[in-house]
């Protein structure tokens, strides 16, 4: 049993909401018409007439001027709601008789088809329903047969329900304010299990977790965990939340927890014999979170060189990225950086450094090369200009030293 509601074209949203009050399975057939699956409503409202009357009453309460029809099949209900005003209930088996007086212009077909039928003198549903199916199929093809079924009230298409936007969220009001992390994790574990079950039931995974903690003395503490790939592992979620909350604890006891998941389709990956080894994204995320908890937020990641000549300029990306294989370059003489650079005392003779002394670095200069004068960013508020020297000290090690604004520094050693 299906019900259809026909209103003004501008009320599409209201019509949809009205239909959803009666059934979770609702189809928006047109801008001015919605259909709903009325199966089971008789237990709440009684006879089909009473169901239709209840829908009409609720429409009137919402300020909608709507026609309501109930029929055994979806198309018959829709055409009855569109064609007749007020409340209509089409008894099972009487669809052809009931819809007979409706004009063919209500049918969803091409203007050419309607013109052809009009030329034949076929203008009402009953005229089309009276035509023999075989002859109609020979002259109008499958579309003619489809229209014949609709005009006879014998359409049997299933309802195509509107997909509601999915929300995966859990909300828990705590009985008493929670100060420690462990009891909070106990609550979060239960919420995560529930979220995971909801996501798994729909074949989805989480790409982001949003946690909001309502604090005892007002205000909220919000944290968001974004994953590189969709995940569906409660243990991993809980560990990531634990590490994040340990690094960023709420400033006051928590009285309410709200946890939501942004859903995404699960990752489909196929392994191969010749694919180079790489950490599983889920495991890598967990490892990165543990490393961040150990050495600090900005100390873990993949380095990226910045587009500047400033020495030692780089930034950290959150995690290694996929790239295409390349070829190693020729060997080069690498520098081991000393961070922060150490202040040095350098003795000069004839414009050449002869002795270097800094923390952990001390010796006579055996050989040196320089100065290499570099500068940059003079057009910004943070310019740099320095004279670099490569020096071999009496201890056998090679260092890069530089002077900037009259002061000497050891930048690193060549190794």
């Amino acid at each position: 049993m299906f019900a259809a509601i026909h209103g003004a074209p501008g009320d599409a949203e209201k019509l949809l909401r009205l239909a959803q009050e009666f059934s979770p399975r609702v189809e928006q057939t047109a801008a001015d018409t919605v259909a709903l699956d009325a199966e089971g409503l008789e237990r709440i409202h009684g006879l089909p007439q009473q169901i239709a009357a209840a829908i009409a009453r609720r429409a009137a309460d919402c300020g909608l001027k709507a026609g309501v029809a109930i029929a055994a099949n979806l198309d018959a209900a829709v055409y009855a709601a569109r064609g007749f005003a007020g409340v209509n209930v089409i008894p099972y088996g009487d669809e052809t008789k009931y819809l007979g007086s409706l004009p063919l212009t209500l049918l969803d077909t091409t203007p050419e088809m309607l013109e052809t039928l009009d030329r034949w003198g076929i203008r009402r549903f009953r005229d089309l329903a009276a035509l023999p199916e075989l002859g109609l199929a020979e002259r109008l093809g499958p579309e003619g047969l489809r229209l014949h079924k609709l005009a006879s009230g014998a359409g049997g298409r299933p309802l195509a329900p509107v997909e509601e936007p999915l929300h995966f969220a859990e909300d828990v009001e705590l009985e008493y304010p929670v100060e420690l992390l462990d009891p909070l994790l106990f609550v979060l574990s239960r919420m995560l299990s529930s979220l995971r079950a909801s996501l798994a039931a729909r074949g989805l995974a989480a790409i982001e977790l949003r946690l909001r903690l309502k604090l005892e003395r007002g205000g909220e503490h919000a944290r968001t965990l974004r994953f590189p790939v969709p995940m569906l592992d409660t243990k991993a979620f809980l560990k990531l939340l634990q590490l994040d909350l340990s690094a960023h604890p709420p400033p006051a006891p928590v009285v309410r927890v709200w946890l939501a998941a942004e859903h995404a389709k699960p990752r489909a990956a196929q392994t191969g014999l010749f694919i180079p080894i790489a950490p599983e994204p889920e495991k890598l995320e967990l490892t990165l979170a543990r490393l961040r908890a150990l050495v600090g937020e900005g100390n873990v990641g993949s380095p990226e060189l910045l587009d500047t000549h400033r020495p030692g300029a780089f930034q950290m990306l959150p995690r290694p990225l996929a790239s295409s294989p390349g070829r190693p370059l020729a060997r080069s003489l690498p520098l081991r950086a000393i961070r922060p650079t150490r202040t040095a005392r350098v003795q000069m003779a004839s414009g050449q450094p002869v002795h270097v002394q800094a923390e952990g670095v001390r010796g006579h200069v055996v050989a040196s090369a320089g100065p290499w004068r570099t500068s940059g960013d003079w057009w910004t508020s943070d310019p740099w200009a320095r004279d670099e020297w490569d020096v071999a000290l009496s201890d056998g090690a090679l260092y890069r030293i530089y002077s900037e604004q009259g002061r000497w520094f050891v930048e690193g050693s060549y190794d």
Partner: protein
Amino acid sequence: MAAVALGRDFEFRVRLPEICPTGVAEVDAAAGGLPQGCLTEIYGPASSGRTSLMLAALAHATCRDEVCALVDASDAFDPASAAAAGVRLERLLWVRCGGNAEHALKAADLLVQGGGFGMVVMDLADTPMITARRISLTSWFRLRRAVEHTPTVLLVLEQQPLAKTCASLLLEMRREKAAWSGMPGCAHLLRGIRVRAERHKPVPAVAASFASRW
């Protein structure tokens, strides 16, 4: 008779580890490369080519599209030098420990346990020996056990050997001479360093020389 047959059936076989190239042909030819699933120590004084060898190995591994990790105990890694050596930085995870050797050890353990890395390098080359010697043999044993039966190469850079029996390959680096060009005071340039790598373990000891140059 049955015992003899059983002994023959259960013949004990040592499974040799897979070898990864170091990226330095001279070292590969002499020492054979870096064994997977084993702990390798590269040690030597400053400017002895430890970092050159490590970057060459990382460059080779990242160019095979493997994800590698560098646990940098004293924050000495220079991304520009690594990029110049051919390391694909986007395939490298860099963990900066700010001088804390204990954090470096824990980070290396986490990375090896996490799995999936082609090479994990723990750089203790600038860690003071007094601190480095405090790392217990148990910790090294734990690392060795964690990396065993995995395709990961675990590389440790240091000033002196620390892991004792836990290391499967021991490479000592020595500087031979720095190469300069031009005349002192006039167009004098540091061209590179000539270094020597000596394999002390497994025996027999072998050696190879190579140059790191601009």
